[in-house]
């Protein structure tokens, strides 16, 4: 069988976010097994391992699952991703850090085993800027944008990009770090209240999101001018703030809601059959969908690998080839019962990050739903590409890697 480890976190500070993702990830594979009889006829097996968002446990999980023939890792934490990049590269197992992890890993010449399609944090930063550019008719000069970020590697990711973009578009950027866990953000929000930035971006995670949105509502910051990264845009983040969160925006890697044919299948083959990974109440939530989407991409890559290598029983190396040749189109998504679920993209050796398409979703507090308010749009690859080159080159130099495409 084909082994897909899932380094999940159903405990610890981010459990509330880890659970729906892990459920979605697992349910999709169950669906594929039940409905299609596996991938190319071979059943998929999800090996779940609890990391608690803790790096050391992540290492233990990696070591204990890799021997089982793991095809691709979805580390689900920036820290663990950094951790696994050299290890997995040495072991020849691909990593898919979808929308997180090391951004410059998009450079497949330096990071042959790491993929971060369809979009990464730097794309995200650019999406957010693009969105406010759209709102302002393409001119941001003289505008003020504040970034509220989790004071960690993850939260610091967009800073470089935003700095470049602020130089390019002439907006003023102010940085407001929030320390883990982020329960107290009075200072940051009072500062926002004083300085009245036109827009606030947020790179938050866990309780920090809820508190930020709550505080923004408290100071009556206009919610439609508040844009979070895709990790700051789940139901968990907005519901505690109640009506105050109405109009809050977040970036999206994929579509929202459960209005897709695939969910009928999930209901039929997975939930009704009593095989759902979770309690079933998370289906259709943003993070469940994200888990589902990640699993879908993994399955598609596996199919691709089977196709390339002509064998159903693929190895991690073949899986890598499949990922590198992955193509997601309107049609392929529709065929899976997920029309327009995610952006269309292709992966190549030079570009493991895809084109970096993203959309914006907005919260409707009355209806308790997220919905996309834009199409999947491009990001400023001119700026980002250069940054990726620079950062990956530094990594290559430090680690004596000769960038190349096989």
């Amino acid at each position, binding site marked *: 069988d084909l082994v897909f480890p899932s380094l999940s976190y159903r405990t610890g500070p981010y459990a509330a976010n880890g659970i729906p993702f892990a459920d979605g990830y697992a349910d999709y594979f169950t669906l594929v097994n039940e409905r299609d009889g596996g991938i190319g006829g071979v059943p998929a097996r999800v090996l779940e391992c609890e990391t608690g968002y803790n790096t050391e446990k992540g290492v233990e999980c990696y070591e204990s699952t890799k021997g089982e023939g793991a095809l691709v890792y979805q580390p689900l934490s920036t820290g663990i991703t950094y951790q696994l990049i050299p290890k997995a590269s040495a072991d020849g197992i691909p990593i898919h850090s979808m929308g997180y992890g090391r951004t410059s890993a998009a450079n497949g010449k330096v990071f042959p085993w790491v993929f971060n399609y369809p979009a990464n944090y730097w794309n995200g930063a650019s999406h957010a800027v693009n969105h406010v550019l759209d709102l302002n008719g393409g001119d941001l000069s003289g505008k003020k944008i504040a970034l509220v970020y989790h004071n960690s590697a993850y939260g610091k990711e967009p800073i470089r990009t935003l700095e470049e973009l602020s130089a390019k578009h002439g907006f003023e950027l102010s940085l407001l770090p929030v*320390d883990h866990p982020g329960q*107290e953000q009075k200072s940051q929000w009072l500062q926002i209240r004083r300085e009245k930035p036109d827009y606030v971006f947020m790179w938050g995670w866990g*309780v920090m999101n*809820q508190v930020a949105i709550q505080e923004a509502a*408290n100071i009556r910051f206009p919610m439609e001018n508040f844009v979070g990264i895709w990790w700051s845009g789940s139901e968990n983040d907005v519901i*505690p703030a109640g009506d*105050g969160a109405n109009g809050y925006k977040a970036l999206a890697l994929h579509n929202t809601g459960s209005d897709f044919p695939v969910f009928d299948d999930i209901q039929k083959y997975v939930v009704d059959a*009593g095989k759902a990974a979770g309690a079933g109440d998370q289906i259709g939530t943003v993070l469940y969908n994200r888990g589902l989407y990640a699993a879908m991409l993994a399955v598609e890559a596996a199919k691709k690998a089977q196709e390339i290598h002509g064998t159903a029983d693929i190895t991690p190396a073949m899986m890598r080839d499949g990922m590198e040749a992955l193509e997601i189109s309107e049609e392929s998504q529709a065929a899976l019962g997920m029309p327009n679920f995610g952006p269309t993209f292709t992966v190549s050796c030079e570009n493991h990050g895809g084109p970096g398409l993203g959309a914006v979703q907005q919260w409707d507090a009355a209806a308790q739903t997220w919905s996309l308010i834009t199409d999947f749009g491009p990001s400023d690859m001119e700026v980002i590409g250069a940054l990726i080159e620079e950062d990956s080159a530094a990594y290559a130099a430090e680690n004596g890697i000769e960038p190349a495409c096989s």
Partner: protein
Amino acid sequence: MPEQLLFATEVILNGLMAGVLYALVALGFVLIFKASGVFNYAQGVMALFAAMTLVGIQTGQVPFAHLINTILGTEIHHFGWHVPALLSILLTLGVMILFAILVERVLLKHLVNQEPIILFMATIGLAYFMEGFGDLMWGSDIKKLDVGLPQGISETIDTTTYEWFGYGFFIDRLDIAATIVAVILVISLTLFSQYTKTGRALRAVADDHQAALSVGISLRRIWVIVWSIAGFVALVAGIMWGAKSGVQFSLSLIALKALPVLMLGGFTSIPGAIVGGLIIGVGEKLFEFAIGPMVGGATENWFAYVLALIFLVFRPQGLFGEKIIERV
């Protein structure tokens, strides 16, 4: 008033409010420390557990639903009722008292007369236990806590101050509520510990377990009382913080915000918790306001500790703590 001064005033006011919230957590530590010399690491987890239980009762959640469903293959989640806020607070209080009794029975009883660090460690074990247990019981999703506390900017203050200074101060109504609750708590607890026989017994126990036993103070009773009160304080803190940020794992980490308060106010002083809280709240907010931007921000966590440290160097027992007796 010049603008900067207005801003600073607003920061100070909010610092005071934040300080009150820290103090609420610190209070739980102080109670238990004062009464038994135990540094209760589990205080944060207790707050979390109390808040989770409150929400669970209020929304009619089935405890251990996940476990039951996994074992029996059932699909139960909710009882389908909704308990009024006040009743569920009372019920939760009952649960916390039960918890206090259990802690005494299972744990503290066996650790009479041990060194403080051992007792500290035991509460760490307790914290681990409760962390797993609480999650197993109520699930680790984020829960919204709603007992009808007001929230959001206080319009009255905003508009009045706007009329006066041309700049409306931001004060959160939740903070105002917390302040009122905290003041009532602190006053009643101070009176209790200073002027009642039980209060005196509490302090005796903290000094010397064996001697307390020898004069007939029942450690077991005292501990149950104290842990029940601490459970109540944890519940109050859990409600306030839970209303602010939802009920979920990170709630237990608020303990870290309470430690510098504790240090500064003194481990054994109830009023110290409040004063310490206010100083820390104002200090860290002001520092972040004035110096933070120059050094890149996010200074609050460490600055609170450094501030407390500076105070300690001059008063090693904290502002109001009992003097450390050094004699030979």
